[in-house]
């Protein structure tokens, strides 16, 4: 086993014994095997699976440990996930029912939608649900993310789903599209960036929408989500200028970009909100 994992023997022994003490590993005769209670948590990928986001949590903790320096003023750039697999699997661990709820809200608000642009859509969980509801979807993300998810999440050959490489923080990205969309969906995007970047991003999004098109933003809204303040600490540790933003800030950016009919909806568990706004018809 030390050879297979490239592991240190002493470390492996101590860790296996600790996992045995916690009940996640069993000993049968003279062998270690995974305990039955650990399989759904760490192996199976079902509804109890936590193996998707715990490795990413570990990566995040590395950043949190630098908070003393950050509080003292040390500046950091946006940390690129050191392991795209851990990051994408964490993104993909959003419960299916949450995604179904969000897509349902989007389509209730924009009943005639036929096309959607999923900005920074990563593992494609939202895009796939939009496609299953009859829309044509374009998922845009960084080149390395698209390369990874197209194979690992089997997105490459899904009918009515197009994968596109690009950087939506750059002005030029708007020019790379020949079509306009009925919905631009932005899930967990705005917390990564500063007010200025978000305002400019929404300006670009407005140029990608058809008349009467809708932007839908899913995120933690300060003052409405009970987790917004703590999540902002995560962004303090991991981004140059990200954070969580108030409803007033979202409304200001959206109006500046030409949107109207702005609504903020608390999602079922109230962890997050869905903000929708429309371009003029």
């Amino acid at each position, binding site marked *: 086993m030390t050879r297979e994992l490239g592991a240190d023997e002493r470390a492996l022994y101590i860790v*296996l014994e600790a*996992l045995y003490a916690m009940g996640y590993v069993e000993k049968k005769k*003279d062998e*270690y095997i995974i305990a039955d209670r650990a399989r759904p948590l760490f192996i199976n990928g079902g509804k109890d699976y936590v193996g998707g986001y715990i490795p990413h949590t570990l990566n995040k903790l590395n950043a949190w440990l630098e908070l003393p320096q950050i509080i003292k003023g040390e500046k950091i750039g946006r940390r690129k996930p050191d392991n795209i697999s851990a990051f994408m699997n964490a993104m993909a661990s959003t419960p299916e029912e949450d995604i179904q709820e969000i897509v349902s809200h989007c389509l209730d608000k924009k009943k005639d939608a036929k096309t959607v642009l999923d900005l920074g859509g990563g593992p494609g969980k939202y895009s796939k649900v939009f496609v299953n509801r009859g829309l044509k979807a374009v998922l845009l993300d960084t080149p390395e993310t698209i390369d990874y998810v197209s194979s690992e999440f089997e997105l490459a050959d899904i009918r009515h789903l197009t994968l596109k490489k690009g950087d939506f923080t750059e002005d030029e990205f708007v020019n790379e599209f020949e079509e306009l969309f009925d919905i631009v969906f932005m899930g967990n995007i705005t917390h990564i960036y500063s007010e200025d970047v978000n305002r400019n991003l929404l300006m670009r999004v407005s140029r990608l929408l058809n008349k009467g098109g809708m932007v839908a933003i899913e995120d933690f809204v300060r003052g409405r989500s009970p987790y917004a303040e703590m999540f902002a600490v995560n962004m303090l540790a991991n981004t140059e200028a990200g954070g969580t933003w108030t409803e007033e800030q979202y409304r200001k950016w959206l109006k500046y970009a030409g949107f109207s009919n702005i609504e903020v909806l608390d999602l079922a568990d109230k962890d997050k909100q869905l903000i929708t706004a429309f371009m003029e018809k």
Partner: protein
Amino acid sequence: MNYEELVFDRAIEGANKIILLGSALKTGLFSALTEKKGYSFIDTGTGS
């Protein structure tokens, strides 16, 4: 405040466990332990 009051010793123990489990996952330990044959105890040279 929206969070439950922190019980420090439990929280620290929880953090240790998450780091241990995360490390086991990241290094493929759990997957390796699903092999049918299992893995024999390691001779640590301590007589244990």
